[in-house]
């Protein structure tokens, strides 16, 4: 599904290397988690994957289902099946949430050469998927993320994911700023999207999200590289001993 090879990335403005050779393969149907201390490059990896400006890829490749996505614009990557649930979802005053969702769904369909979704089918789908995330009609009507609480913003991200049905989902610290109940709700939404054709990359600081979204593989990232990979037990090790033990072990 997703294949990252020796990815090296500089911050465009300051010629500083942030990712120093990342290798990662996520197969369809699998959930991979990336954990790591602050500043290890986890969020940068998610931005580079989704095509945000400001980063210069100096080496390596990212392949999504046989396509080299480094050559693609963010919207082309989205149409190819990549989705990033933002750590900080952006507020967009003046753009209605529903309008936004429908425009996005149809833009992707168009890019893939598919027919636009009919208004009634769209409404039906949104209502169904929103209600399982406890997103009410009022939230759907409001401008995108404007005045949403932290939890509402994250649920709105998952709703977008549910509507766009991506193949490869990246969740960037989706648990940050969530209380336990909100986290369970978000995790439930994510779990309902798990299937054999879809890959997940869950980026998080803490093990607690992984109690609810059970990973197949856990990676530890430090100083721009994946330094250790293992099963779910690796996340527990981090939870119990912190990162320092693992980092000193690999150093």
């Amino acid at each position, binding site marked *: 599904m997703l294949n990252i090879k020796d990815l090296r990335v500089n911050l465009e403005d300051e010629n500083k290397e942030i990712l120093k050779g990342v290798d990662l393969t996520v197969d369809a149907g699998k959930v991979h988690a990336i954990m790591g201390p602050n500043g290890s490059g986890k969020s940068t990896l998610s931005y580079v994957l*989704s*095509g*945000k*400006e400001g980063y210069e890829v100096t080496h390596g490749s990212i392949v999504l289902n046989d396509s080299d996505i480094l050559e693609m*614009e*963010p*919207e082309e*990557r*989205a*149409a190819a099946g990549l*989705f*990033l649930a*933002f750590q900080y*979802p*952006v*507020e*967009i*005053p*003046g*753009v209605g949430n529903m*309008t*936004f969702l429908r*425009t*996005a*769904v149809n*833009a*992707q369909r168009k*890019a893939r050469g598919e027919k636009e979704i009919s208004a009634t089918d769209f409404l039906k789908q949104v209502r169904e998927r929103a209600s399982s995330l406890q997103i009410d009609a009022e939230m759907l009507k409001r*401008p995108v993320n404007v005045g949403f609480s932290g939890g509402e913003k994250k649920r709105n991200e998952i709703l*977008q994911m549910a509507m*766009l049905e991506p193949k490869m989902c990246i969740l960037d610290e989706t648990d940050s700023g969530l209380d336990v109940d909100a986290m369970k709700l978000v995790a439930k939404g994510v779990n309902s999207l798990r299937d054999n054709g879809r890959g997940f990359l869950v980026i998080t600081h803490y093990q607690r999200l992984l109690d609810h979204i059970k990973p197949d593989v856990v990676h530890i990232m430090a100083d721009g590289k994946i330094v250790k990979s293992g099963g779910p037990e690796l996340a527990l090790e981090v939870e119990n001993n912190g990162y320092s033990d693992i980092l000193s072990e690999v150093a």
Partner: protein
Amino acid sequence: MALEQQNFNPIENAKSQLKNHNRGWSQKSRESALIRLSSIGLPNHRDEYWKYTNPAELLTNDLHGLAVTDHEEANVFAEVDALKIIFCDGIFKPDLSDEFLSDNISINRLADKGDLHWAQNYYGALEKHSHTPVARPLAALNTATASDGVLIHVKGNIDKPILILGLQNVQAEATLHHIIKIDPGCSLTLLESGSFATKLNTVMEVFLEKGANFEHVRTQGKDHDRVAATHIFSDIKENAKFKSFTLTANGILTRNECVLNLSGDDCVAHVAGASVGDGKTFHHDDTVFITHDAVACESRQVFKKVLRNGATGVFQGKILVKEGAQKTDGYQISQSLLLDDDSQFLAKPELEIYADDVACSHGSTSGAIDEQALFYLCSRGISRNDATDMLTLAFLAEAVEEIENKNVANIIVEKISAWLSRRKN
């Protein structure tokens, strides 16, 4: 010929026009407007209120723009069931216009001379008092020389909006002067669309009696070569409500002035504008002067401009709160969205307050498109162009929301979307 054009003097031209044509009931008002104009003089780039907009183009008799002959495009409000009054190249077209048969409204034309007329005491009356503290020479010139215009007196309920449509067939200059008088408790929705002429000078004087309600929605369309100076004057009595919205795209030079006098207690005045400018030749100027001269009145100015490829936007807006105009609620916002480094927005917000119990706020901003928001939209599969259009529409929304008639507001939104998306083709 070239020399003649260089020496063209609008004041002298107005003098000879008035000498050679008797305009019937409006003659006296025209002569006094000419005297006013002679004493205040023509606008000059050095004048305080013409600092950001060079009036030279508005003062020549040189027509270099091309006529916009796409009549379908001219009528943005084709879907609205409205009573149509149609001008072509500044000349009234009775065969294209609708007939009005109602006791509740009388509609006449300025060009109908006659001797006695209900509009006699209204023609030029607001323009006359608008010159202090800021002179409006082009409005005085209009009063002196207007060739035609619509005179509307609303006396009862009318169920349809009135649409003044300005078509073009040939390169022409037009000077139109409209009078709107709305009796106590009556309402009118007035729509305006079309380019009217290559060079246009319009004045609209709006008299709102107690509890009268006026909604004005105007589009100044995609005609690239338009040179226009427009003035809207209104005197707003007790409990009356004035609303005006203008959508502008393209044009070489557009100066829209709005001068409102809130003279009755508890009245409301909202004036808004959305403009979309593309290219170095685009220059759009909104100049607003709102005087609060009564208690507990509300005024709002909402102006939004989207500028790209070297376009220029100007906003000069003033709220004057006179002594005794307590409980005034004044709001003014002017914002520009600059889509590149070449475009510029010049804003001069002013407040002058002589009462002590008022709430007035004003703000002015210039900004680029929000890159974070753009990336967010693109990451969901929306193309950069479409995402930019969505954010542009969102930026203009606060101005468009000033339109009370939701049907008309939707038409305006569709029009803006169409104009934005056509740019990409």
